[in-house]
């Protein structure tokens, strides 16, 4: 055990910070740090800037156009980008379908899709959850039936983030009705412009519409878009769950929110003094900062396991739970910084072009939307309750 940060790590951190400071477009930074709405083109622009530098795919191997970075470098990269106000890199292509294609895809599929993920010429979305299949994903019922050389897909996906911006969706579909539910699932790539694909936005608590329902009615999908073997899609789904699990920690968001919280608590007044000097509020900031410190070190420990080629199980569940709880606590504290000025409801003020007046004069009402939106993090990616089941199973064995 050697707990010193290596000089290489420090150099790496400085290199990333320097690049982001120089190349992140100021308009995008302002949106991200102001909790304003980020447009499709903003994500694409930043991804292309990173890709030009060779940093388009932090988790991919070099031969596929990735960086070849280890887990620790990846989380440092995420942290530096996030704190500086960069938008997140969309995970659906880079962290989900990309690695799946690298592990299970045909050469043709890899050549066709991987380069377009790096440049975001394709925007991918994830067709997993269904109205009747949430935590119990294996009970999904969207079915794909073979007809000649195509699959005919019928069913409905839901909670599909950014489906309205996507031109491709990767789906888990049922290709066999008999036997164990897990053994009749396949992994299909579906062109969103195909006839029969319909996207309907879901209005969320924050008045945003990032998630959607996706209806699939007699959608014809070429057989060539099957990834891996038919009825082996569950293996792929499990592979994805076990892949770069440390990103689940959300360390970048935690760090960014914490920095922002301290800035705001210093600038917002209470009884003529900065809010941060109020002992009650200060203690809460301290507690969450301590939580972030612990979380960061837990992430470093998990990263070092991953680096040593060990798979992480309960560790990842703990990262998910703590990361989501910390983000939620931070978003609440941020909203409480705004106090009464978070009450006015001005969804239009979340657009960067908004030129009207807000109650406080500087846009604090965006913090309420952030608070509402982040309730999702303890629900998606396996609810925190499901994660606790997994932790308990690791401690007690599968059949206590």
């Amino acid at each position: 055990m050697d707990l010193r940060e290596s000089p290489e790590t420090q150099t790496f951190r400085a290199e990333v910070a320097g690049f982001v400071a120089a190349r992140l477009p100021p308009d995008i930074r302002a949106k991200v740090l102001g909790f304003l709405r980020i447009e499709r083109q903003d994500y694409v622009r930043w991804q292309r800037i990173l890709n030009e530098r060779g940093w388009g795919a932090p988790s991919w191997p070099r031969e596929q156009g990735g960086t070849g970075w280890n887990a620790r470098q990846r989380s440092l990269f995420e942290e530096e980008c996030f704190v500086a106000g960069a938008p997140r890199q969309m995970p659906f292509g880079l962290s989900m379908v990309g690695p799946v294609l690298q592990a299970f895809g045909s050469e043709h599929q890899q050549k066709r899709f991987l380069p377009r993920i790096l440049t975001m010429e394709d925007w991918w979305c994830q067709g997993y959850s269904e109205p009747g299949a949430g935590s119990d994903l294996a009970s999904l019922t969207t079915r794909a039936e073979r007809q000649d050389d195509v699959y005919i897909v019928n069913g409905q996906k839901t909670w599909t983030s950014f489906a309205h911006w996507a031109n491709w969706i990767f789906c888990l579909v049922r290709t066999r009705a008999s036997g164990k539910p897990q053994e009749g699932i396949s992994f299909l790539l579906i062109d969103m412009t195909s006839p029969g694909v319909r996207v309907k936005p879901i209005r969320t608590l924050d008045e945003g519409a990032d998630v959607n329902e996706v209806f699939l009615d007699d959608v014809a999908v070429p057989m060539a878009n099957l990834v891996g073997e038919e009825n082996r899609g569950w293996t792929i789904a499990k592979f994805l769950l076990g892949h770069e699990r440390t990103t689940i920690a959300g360390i970048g968001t935690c760090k960014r929110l914490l920095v922002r919280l301290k800035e705001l608590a210093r600038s917002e007044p209470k009884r003529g003094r900065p809010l941060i000097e109020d002992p009650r509020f200060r203690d809460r900031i301290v507690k969450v900062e301590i939580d972030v410190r612990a979380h960061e070190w837990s992430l470093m420990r998990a990263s070092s396991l991953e680096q040593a080629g060990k798979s992480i199980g309960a560790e990842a569940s703990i990262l998910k739970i703590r990361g989501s709880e910390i983000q939620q606590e931070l978003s609440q504290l941020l909203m409480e910084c705004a106090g009464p000025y978070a009450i006015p409801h001005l969804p239009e003020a979340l657009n960067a072009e908004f030129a009207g007046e807000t109650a406080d004069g500087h846009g604090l009402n965006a913090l309420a939307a952030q608070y509402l939106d982040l309730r999702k993090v303890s629900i998606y990616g396996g609810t925190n309750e499901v994660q606790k089941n997994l932790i308990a199973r690791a401690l007690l064995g599968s059949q206590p």
Partner: protein
Amino acid sequence: MNFSYSEEQQMLAETVMRWLAAETVVQRGFSPERWGELAELGLLGLNVDEDHGGLGATPVETLIVMQEFGRALFGQPFVSTAVVGAALLGNIGSAAQRDDMLPRIVNGSLRVALATLEPGARFDLADISTTAVRQGQSYVLNGRKAVVLHGDSAHVLIVCARTSGGQRDQDGLTLFLVDATAAGVTVRGSPTLDGQRAAEISLADVQVPLDSVLGEIGSGYVPLEWAVDRGIAALCAEAVGAMEKLMELTAEHLRTRKQFGQPIGRFQALQHRLADMQIAVEQARSMALQAAALIEHPQRNERRKALSAAKAMIGRSGHFVGQQAVQLHGGMGMTAELAVGNYFKRLTCIDMTWGNTDHHVELYGDLL
């Protein structure tokens, strides 16, 4: 950064583990036999440099040993003497003091205790009303020291006394090496909640020679705080060991205790409680590692923040894990018969040693 034990570190952990496994009954109070064995194993020299017969090890080795001590509820005055005492002497002791005392710490013939905190001062290291007044070629000490950990088995007390300044000033504090048997020193020992020992100490016109001053006159606070941080790091590691053991005991209980015809570990309410405990232990472990990593940070504020963060977290986790372990053991958890209660009590005392969670949240806030 590398979190796996090196071969030597693995050997160290195993040596301590095997040695402690031989102990079947929790030792109450000071044990000369155990102390002799600690010396034989070389552990008393972990924080002493090689020139004085020690190992000159890194904070990681202390962390490894303390975790094993925590797992075994080892209650000997190791932290007082071999962590805080040795570090403080090594850091600010004069050449004569180091040459005289450090080899004796290593060979087990000298124990020291930190006599700093006072009645009414709670955890504040600067709240000192004990006075030291220069009289010719000596200082005369008067005052009282409260809950001096292992004070009744120590040969030498490291006493913090005021040589100038007001009651809570950080300036004006001086450290003295005081013979525990000197005239005017009264040591009243008692057991602690967790089966260790502490002492109330009064100093009535205690005369000490000038060369008993440790460090510089009036500048005792900074090194004292530094040394206590060393102790805090050690306690954090010990707490992690104790929590680890509580997790094992509790998981085993959930696997084997049957009610309603099945192991109680099948009930999800209990599974989630166990998961919450595990989360708390892992946060604590991360913070104990962070404490060990930053204890030697050259900037005081960086070190202080890491140590206060760790202690605050360990206090919170320790209470939670201890309380839930008792709860999940049901009525049996309330009995003195089970080890669970002993771990719970140790964790409770660790939180109240050198600053509880609230205290360290406050200190951290001052540096925010």
